[in-house]
């Protein structure tokens, strides 16, 4: 693989007992856009957290530009990798602008306050995510799609090279799903951010991601283009669901049609 920016090499991980990730290896090429799919409990969320250093592998290592993540200071990691969690609970009444400014935390110098550089970075990501008009509204009053765009803006304010998203569209209506995925793809192609996102909806994953990685029981089953990964046989085996794979009418991308047992 060309210039891997983030690599997991033979990673084992367990919370208390039983391995959640087993001898897992994965590599993200610079500028790539990868969807992480797999059934519930296959280890997607855990893998995302291991890749951004929130969880430490029990065995194996994660390498950021060839350097072991566990040896890097948190601040340095935060300037390169941004994480968008599945559920972000914001108990306080921040405005969207204040939320995005929190993304500047890895650049904060104590007792110096917010710099012009921070403001410029925030303005830039507000424009990029099309959230300028939301900036001074309370975060809690925004719609789900707007909130997700603001959270992505916050992650981008870290000026990361790598963006790791955990189910970025899972609670959204279809129009907001498309809006957020379009945004992520634009960030990938224009801002050249390397993207890895876990996805529940296999059809959306197929449409929006160049590469898919299928996870099952803490191991990578297969990585490749959507056409390579989304096969009827694999879906049956991993998800235990009967599907028919068809081609999208307008794009050369596979789409799944469910075949419930009664049909």
């Amino acid at each position: 693989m060309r210039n891997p920016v983030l690599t997991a090499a033979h990673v084992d991980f367990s919370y208390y007992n039983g391995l959640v990730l087993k001898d897992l290896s994965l590599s993200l090429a610079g500028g790539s856009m990868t969807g992480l799919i797999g059934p519930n409990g296959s280890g997607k969320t855990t893998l995302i957290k291991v890749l951004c250093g929130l969880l430490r592998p029990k065995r194996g290592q994660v390498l950021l530009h060839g350097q072991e993540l566990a040896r890097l200071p948190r601040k340095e990691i935060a300037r390169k990798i941004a994480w968008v969690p599945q559920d972000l609970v914001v108990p306080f009444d921040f405005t969207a602008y204040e939320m995005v400014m929190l993304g500047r935390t890895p650049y904060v110098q104590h007792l110096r306050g917010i710099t012009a550089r921070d403001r410029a970075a925030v303005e830039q990501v507000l424009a990029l995510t099309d959230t300028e008009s939301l900036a001074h509204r309370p975060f809690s009053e925004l719609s789900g799609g707007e909130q997700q765009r603001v959270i992505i803006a916050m992650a981008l304010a870290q000026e990361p090279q790598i963006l790791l998203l955990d189910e970025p569209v899972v609670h959204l209506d279809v129009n907001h799903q498309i809006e957020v995925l379009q945004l992520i793809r634009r960030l990938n192609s224009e801002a050249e951010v390397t993207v890895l996102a876990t996805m529940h909806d296999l059809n959306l994953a197929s449409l929006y991601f160049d590469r898919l990685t299928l996870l099952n029981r803490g191991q990578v089953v297969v990585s490749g283009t959507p056409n390579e990964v989304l096969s009827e046989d694999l879906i049956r085996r991993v998800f235990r669901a009967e599907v028919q794979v068809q081609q999208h009418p307008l794009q050369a991308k596979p789409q799944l049609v469910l075949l419930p047992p009664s049909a």
Partner: protein
Amino acid sequence: MNNGWRRGAVALPVLGLCLLTAAVAATAIGSVSLPFGEVVKILASRLLGAPVGGPSDTIIWQIRMPRVVTAVIVGGALGTAGAVFQGLLRNPMADPYIIGTSGGAALGATVALLAPIQLSILGFSFVSIAAFAGALGAVLLVYNIGRVGPRTPVTTLLLTGFALSSILAAIMSFLMFISNNALRRIVLWTMGGLGGANWTQLQVVIPAILLALAAVYALAPDLNAFLLGDEQAASLGINVERRKLILLGLGSWLTAAAVSVSGLVGFVGLVVPHVVRLVLGPDHRLLLPASTIVGGLFLVIADLLARSVMPPVELPVGIITALVGGPFFIYLLRKARRDYRF
């Protein structure tokens, strides 16, 4: 933060001016009332190092001023510690006493009040020293019990603090039960009061609190990130466990220092941060210094009321903080147009 920052540039000086005015007024008012102008003159002469002397000078400088300064510093410490604990624990019910400081301090004070020991170090009574040690000891215990492997989850910390506080309170109740002659003094101590204020004590307490305040202000951006949860804070580049320990330590230090000179003054640390947040928003860069000033302001006024509503009897200041602060807080909560999301 953009707006908040500009708001702060106005709010902090205005609040500071209010505090200064209240402090001078509180110094002027008392059993012997002195004209405002004379108070200012005496204070100025003292600050310039040329005391005018005389009975007014003694009343102002030796009796009232230490008390007012203690109110400012204790209120400021409690208000700030409350903001730290609420932010760190992401809990609107949190106050400076939540993780065992009050239980530890009260037990320490009780033991000291019962023990037949009279000693005084640097203007501090044995009770003060025992309360300070008890507060910090309790937090240390809570932190170590609340640890799960390398981490200290917020929920475990809160519940451990609650459990330990109950245990310490039970021991204290037992001690109170078996010792009827110290009962009143113990109860009075738990209601808080600033009657013991003196300059010797303040010479130690002021630097102890100011240093901790400066450190807390410096960590304001980290507290902002903590609001999003431990994991999000970590992903924003914060060394979560280390910072949590430092912030818990600073908050507890502020609380212990305050409690050692004033007893358990309630309500300031719980309500002041909320009041500030309602008006100025949740950004800790503004919230923390504003909570210091408002906490000081609140306690100066409460103490003034405590010693002037029923002369010559002096009420425990804790009664006033709750009785005056409670309704004011309810009024603000109801006045806030949209839901107050803490």
